[in-house]
């Protein structure tokens, strides 16, 4: 994605606590619940019949971590195969990714592994990747064992949680875990699309985008 118009940290203002902005992308097979996770995280909503995403949807949400405010710029991508070639546009320059699969569908776990591989090869080397086994409320239809996924995540250095957008289980937690793991120091250069820098952009209140409408600090 191209750079935003107003960028770069302002020289003062960091005394009241830092504000960091991170680009996060969700990837995974279609119908695993990527949009539902984002919707639960950003708006606290869940729709039983969430329609398939067209292209990609962009939302922002802010979380507070100790004295740091972390603003996520979230790209929720469509899982259909025809959009696959567009994915690099979204994970390029992303500091974090959530790769989602559906615990009741083994194929989607295989596809998630494919995304992890692609991210580790093509995305920023310092990208924080979280693996989300979504639809954990469907335990009776489970096809992917918790241990199997956890072992895989450990081997590949991923954060891992089973989530349920429906019950809200672990949804905020996985975003918070990512926020904790992201580096909050170091000054990214001005002029900044996060670009190749894997560090979040520090901004001040004055620099805040008017766009998000997201409520701060849930």
């Amino acid at each position, binding site marked *: 994605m191209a750079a935003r118009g107003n960028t770069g940290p302002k020289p003062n203002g960091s005394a009241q606590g830092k504000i960091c902005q991170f680009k996060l992308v969700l990837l995974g097979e279609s119908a695993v619940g990527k949009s539902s996770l984002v919707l639960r995280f950003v708006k606290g909503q869940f729709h039983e019949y969430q329609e398939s995403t067209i*292209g990609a949807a962009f939302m922002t949400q802010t979380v507070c971590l100790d004295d740091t405010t972390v603003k996520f710029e979230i790209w929720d991508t469509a899982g259909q195969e025809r959009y696959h070639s567009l994915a690099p546009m979204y994970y390029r320059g992303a500091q974090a990714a959530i790769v989602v699969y559906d615990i009741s569908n083994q194929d989607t776990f295989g596809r998630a592994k494919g995304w992890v591989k692609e991210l580790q090869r093509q995305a920023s080397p310092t990208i924080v990747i979280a693996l989300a086994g979504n639809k954990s409320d469907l335990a009776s239809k489970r096809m992917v064992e918790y241990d199997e996924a956890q072992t895989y995540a450990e081997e590949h250095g991923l954060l891992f949680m089973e989530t349920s957008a429906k019950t809200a289980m672990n949804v905020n937690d996985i975003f918070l875990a990512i926020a904790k793991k992201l580096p909050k120091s170091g000054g990214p250069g001005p002029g900044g699309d996060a670009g190749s820098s894997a560090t979040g952009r520090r901004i001040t209140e004055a620099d805040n985008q008017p*766009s998000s409408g997201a409520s701060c600090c849930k």
Partner: protein
Amino acid sequence: MDGSATFVELDRSVGPGCSEVSILDPNESSFYDFVSDEEVTERKQEEPCEDSEDSSDNPEDVDAVSEDERVVRSLRERDKLVFILSEAGKPIYCRHGSEEKLVSLFGLMQALVFCVQDDDDQIKSITAGAYRIAFLNKGPLIFVAVSRRGETPGQLALHLGYAQSLIVSVLTAAQLKKIFEQRRNYDLRKLLGGADRLMDNLLDGLEQDPAYLLGAVSCLALNPSVRDSISDAIVRHCAKLKNLVFAILLADSQLVTLVRMKKYMLHPADLHLLINLVASSESFKLSESWTPICLPRFDANGFLHAHVSYLADDCQACLLLLTVDKDQFFVLSEAKQGIVQRLRRYKCLEAINRAMKNGGYTMQDVNIPEIRHFLYKARPTAQYTAPLFSAPYDDSYEKDRLLALYHRMHQRMLLPGSQRHLKLVYVVGKYECLLCWVTAFFELYAAIEPLVEKEAVIPRVEKLLNWIKSEESRLFILTSTTF
């Protein structure tokens, strides 16, 4: 397709690219055949009466019926079906059913297309009893419509053409061609995932919405000064953006304004695809979206990138900014914020909300009691206006019947392939009379009380035209705005 067919006519073109030879169904001579009393009762009795003639319907035989046959039978309950398959016969889509279970039916359709093609010819339509089956073989795909709703082959061809455009809008013609050149047997459903709801919505719209029939769009009724302010806000924030081709504001599937790059026009058929995209995607309301979309009339081989967002939580009009630059999301996002702020400052959001809440006008507002309903298309701008459907067309059956009448009249008046291009037609029917009038500037289709004297009709219609003229600046976009 229908085993009980007694009368089958093949309607072929007389060589590649030739205009269609219209072989009319003998029943079609009356406009009112399909709304005859018998048909009404048949509909009310629902379908069993039709199938009961079928001997295999006896309970003890049910198990003997193959799965295929059972699925085909469930399809027969529908008035209209649309199928899409690849030239290799692979199922791609079926309206009202699972294409998966219809493999042999798709094989039959493929065979019909190719056996006619072997004679250097093209199959256009088949008439089988009450059913009309239309074919469109375009590129690597075959489109088939089966209907007993009384459409003409020309109308069904129009519908299939839209279905084809929708697939191109998702994939581009170039990509479609390439896929099948590489693998003739490719299962296209893999690439169309999630597009089903766009297709379902489009096919429903083709039956319900006169916009498709007229090749026109309807505009949200607004005072011209408000519309100008809206266009102006868009121009102010977008004029300097390179590569932005179209900016379109929609409200309830109606056009609020359209701003375009000077050298490009937006074809109504492309606009219909965009309107369909927005109308079938509730999720656009939740966030800003960024999606590639191909507009087949603009460029069938390339994608535009669309920034799609609703103006605000308190104003449900949808703004589409279409660019050729795939990296412009944030630039467009910022432009959108600017547009919304300006619209808010100039109280345009309220004006849009008020117009949306009004929801249009009724024939009572027009105040010509003899006229029950009409469609009016301004031909130079491809915009149309129509009142809301009020009594007696406020129930869905009557509304469908009127729309079908408009469809047929339109076909007779205008569509290529019909033998006559008429200027004025007046049809006296059992339930209403229809007046259709086509000039270089407008098309008018009006449903008139059946008891009105013929001589009284023209003055009423002139009164209607005067009313439209007086409301013109609200109902239509009269000036075209460019960046």
